[in-house]
């Protein structure tokens, strides 16, 4: 069973409290259609569990397969540096079919971020190391495609439809409870 090798820290992009019973880590690619399909499902899962769940998103762009995935990941990191990571994360997935048209500067403006600064950051590769760091940490943890989920550090090898994720997260919650008792 593959385990998450890079622990979640304050450097990560997280939604939900640190004290949540379960942390769901997603390694994703903004241009991957499977990740696009997972995006609304994960939102539903978050709503379902509320504060009992913390979601962490890490970059895993498959650049050979998805030529715009790297720029998308760096755009989200740029937004993150300005406190708007999740807003951009959501916008990118909601505009997934447009990524081929390189809409990143427009999306930045939509979030009132400076498009010129983003253009510069993409040109300079300012967030390349961060994205590559996520990617290699994922490889070391046994990420084997996108999306790959880890539930409390264990790779989720099953399907990622709503019911399957909820069942797996509930199982992790009970496991955490019985471990706390022991």
């Amino acid at each position, binding site marked *: 069973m*593959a385990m998450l*090798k890079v622990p979640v820290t304050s450097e990560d992009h997280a939604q939900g409290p640190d004290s949540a019973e379960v942390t769901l880590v997603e390694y994703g*690619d903004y241009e*991957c*259609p*499977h990740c696009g399909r997972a995006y609304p499902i994960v939102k539903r899962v978050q709503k379902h569990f509320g504060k009992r769940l913390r979601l962490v998103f890490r970059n*895993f762009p*498959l*650049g*050979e*397969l998805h030529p715009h995935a790297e720029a998308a990941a760096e755009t989200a990191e740029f937004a993150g540096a300005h406190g708007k990571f999740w807003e951009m994360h959501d916008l990118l997935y909601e505009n997934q079919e447009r990524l081929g048209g390189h809409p990143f500067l427009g999306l930045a403006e939509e979030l009132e971020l400076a498009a010129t600064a983003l253009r510069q950051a993409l040109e300079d590769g300012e967030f390349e190391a961060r994205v590559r760091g996520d*990617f*290699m940490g994922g*490889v*070391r*943890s*046994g*990420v*084997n*495609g*996108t999306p790959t989920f880890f539930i409390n550090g264990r790779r989720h*090898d099953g399907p990622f439809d709503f019911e399957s994720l909820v069942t797996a997260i509930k199982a992790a919650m009970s496991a955490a409870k019985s471990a706390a008792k022991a």
Partner: protein
Amino acid sequence: MTHSSTTATPTDLNPAASEEASISLGRLLAAGVVAPNFTLNVTPDQTLSLHDLRGRPVILAFYPADWSPVCGDQMGLYNEILPEFQKFRAELLGLSVDGPWCHRAFAEARRLHFPLLSDFEPKGAIARQYGAYRAAEGVCERALFVIDKSGIITWSYCSPIAVNPGADGILEALEDLAK
């Protein structure tokens, strides 16, 4: 059984064991064993021999079939990680029973930058030698081998057929070689 595996488990009187053997045709070659040499087509008109790669580590990735429907499948993932393998001067070879024309189309479609070898005729002969053939389905296992620069297997792993094993095991094995 008419296979040529050198390390197949003897078909003893244990029915369960022989049943298992008939599924996987023997055990995966393990660390310490000399990697059997092979010469296979890498394009419709070119062959490649394992011997030719002596002097550097080699990764063999047997897989069931080209055109797996998932995004970021096993070969696609390794394609993204090639620069990491190259840091160890390691050569990655993908192997399946698909023919060279099929491999060519697959490699072009997925923009793969490493050789895919065709264990095509006689079908699966090399996979059988490595204990990585599934006779029932007629495809290779999802099996990984890391071979050192002198041609000895130092690590091998067979993944459940439906589970992409990722690359973490390969990278750890390459690191161990470099120690």
